[in-house]
């Protein structure tokens, strides 16, 4: 009897202490970026090409990306509202609808910058666990997101995202991402460098560098198609 009781207590205790995969994902999101509104400046280096963007994010469904460099792309601004995205095309002088999975530059998709939170977009389950990290398998909660499936490695203790594999719906590997160069940003240590490598062509690499990140109050009015113009 005592043995059964002790097993039950042990099981209850372990379940109480076990952390849910979606909770790990939320904590990893908190490390990637602040949950409220913030503005960051990022560069994306793909080969010799370097692009610079100013990104304003409010919550998980409002993002405005302004292209600052190179001059040829200046004015190609992006607005994301929920799962929908528009791009301002300077040649047309108007905003047109685009998809989240389109390439922003190099190997980086629009969603790599515009959607910096996994929780909510994906359901997670722990696929693997070792002494230092969890490997989470993510499945998109709906169609139209940047990636249909992903595998994310999160460090135990710190909840730092370490790496990710982005997969097609069939499970084929599209890209690999490494999160590194952790530095103080907006009050905590966050990854300032994300290296995205094409799975088929390993030489195709884009490096997203977060230059600065400032939490600030952003008004809903800023996130409108009418404000996309230069």
């Amino acid at each position, binding site marked *: 009897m005592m043995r059964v009781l002790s097993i039950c207590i042990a099981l209850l205790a372990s379940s109480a202490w076990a952390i849910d995969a979606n909770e790990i994902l939320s904590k990893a999101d908190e490390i990637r970026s602040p949950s409220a509104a913030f*503005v960051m*400046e990022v560069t994306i280096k793909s*080969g*010799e*090409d*370097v692009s610079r963007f*100013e990104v*304003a994010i409010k919550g998980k469904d409002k993002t405005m990306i*302004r292209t*600052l460099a*190179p*001059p*040829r792309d*200046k004015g190609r601004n992006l607005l994301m*509202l*929920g*799962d*929908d*995205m528009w791009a301002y095309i300077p*040649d*047309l*002088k*108007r905003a*047109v*609808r*685009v*998809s*989240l*999975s*389109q*390439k922003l530059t190099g190997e980086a998709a629009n969603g790599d910058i515009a959607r910096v939170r996994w929780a909510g977009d994906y359901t997670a389950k722990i696929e693997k666990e070792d002494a230092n990290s969890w490997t989470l398998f993510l499945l998109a909660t709906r*169609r*139209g997101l940047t990636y249909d499936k992903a595998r994310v490695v999160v460090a135990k203790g710190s909840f730092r995202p370490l790496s990710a594999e982005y997969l097609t719906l069939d499970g084929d590997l599209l890209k690999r991402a490494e999160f590194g160069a952790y530095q103080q940003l907006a009050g905590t240590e966050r990854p300032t460098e994300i290296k995205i490598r094409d799975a088929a062509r390993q030489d195709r690499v884009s490096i997203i560098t977060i230059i600065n990140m*400032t939490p*600030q*109050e*952003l*008004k*809903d*009015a*800023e996130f*409108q*198609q*009418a404000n996309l113009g*230069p």
Partner: protein
Amino acid sequence: MRNYKRTLCIISGLSLSVLSLFFCSAIAESQQQIATTRSKVDSIGSSMWNPGYRWEPYAAVRIDSDYALTSYRVSLLRPTVYAGMRGRLRFASQERSWLLPDRLALIGRARHMRYFGQDALQSDYSEAEWVELSGEWLVAQHALKIGVQELVWGETIGLPLVDLVHARDQREPIFTDPSETRLPAAMAVLSLAPFANWNWQSFVTPLPPKPRLPKRRAELAIIDRSHSSVDQEAEFGTRLGWLSPSGIDTKIYALRHASRIPIYEPVIVDGQAALSYHSSMLNTAGAGLSYAAGAWVLRGDFVRHLNQAFWSPSKSSLEHGAVDRLALGIDWSGEDTRFFALQYSQDQYASQFASLITPRWRRWMAGKFSLPLAGRSFKVEGLVMQGLGHRDLWLQPRVLAETASGLSVELRADLLSGDNQLGHYFGPDTDADRLRLTIKYLF
């Protein structure tokens, strides 16, 4: 033989492009200095979204050289030097009131064009204008913008079906991108977002500019008997948009505006046959939608011009009737800015126009692609627009070379063939093939 000549033109143009790139690489030497200056200017203000002000300068210089492609001959038509600059001074505040809104922006954009005439009919001339000179007040999710500006409506790419807010430069509508033929106007634009996912935009243009008309059409001089824009009626319109939870962006439109198709009456002036321009107001209703799924985007626009006018030679008066225009497109964007699009479009004319336009249904199918080469430095693009059931054919190969520093060289050919009749897309430009070399530098 003509095709052989065209090929020669394209090859010679490509060679010119390469030479131009070499020439312009010398300019790149000064890039360092420009970059330093720009970074100094950028640092005047802080982030776009921070309280305070921000000054965003921008300038561009462009040289266009147009060549006519006629049998066995390539002739330089007209070089154009274009210079434009833009500045946006933006103030943002944390405290809100009607005097001190969330954001106040003053926007100025000007352009100057110098055309060099190449024949006796056209002498050199310049055009300078404000493309934008406006003030914008932003309070909560509502905005009011007053001043000279451009307002562009429509979901499809290519045919400007709903892009009806502005009068147009009609001098070379086929050979000029729709965005460049729009004539900026002094207007008030009110944008409201009363509920989540709903937006409502309205405009009024009290004194709309008249379209810029060509000097001649089909060898006939064009005269304009109205004297100034004061003769024009005010234009106004409204658009209601809703983004559904499923991601379908739907918009409905209603506008009152001058006809964007110039209407000409044949007249005799001083014993010479000529065309007299008529301004005619019309009411338009329309709808548009767009939907993104993965790398694919669906787009559609529909407009009904309720009382479009055409000149009826048999009645010697304007004939009014409905014209429906529809465009449905699908496009795919892939890696490295690869782009492919298909678009079906059709025009339908009311029975009143039966004697003027035959058949009353016009259909076209268009395909467009963009393929980057050598990273993003070179781009090959193509447009094919084919009439369905009629002879209209528009081929537009385009080669673009651009550097990250802002220098670009573009060679574009427009090869048109079809019926030169009212109602056909190309109208008087049918069989007027053109080659354009553009060198552009963005500061």
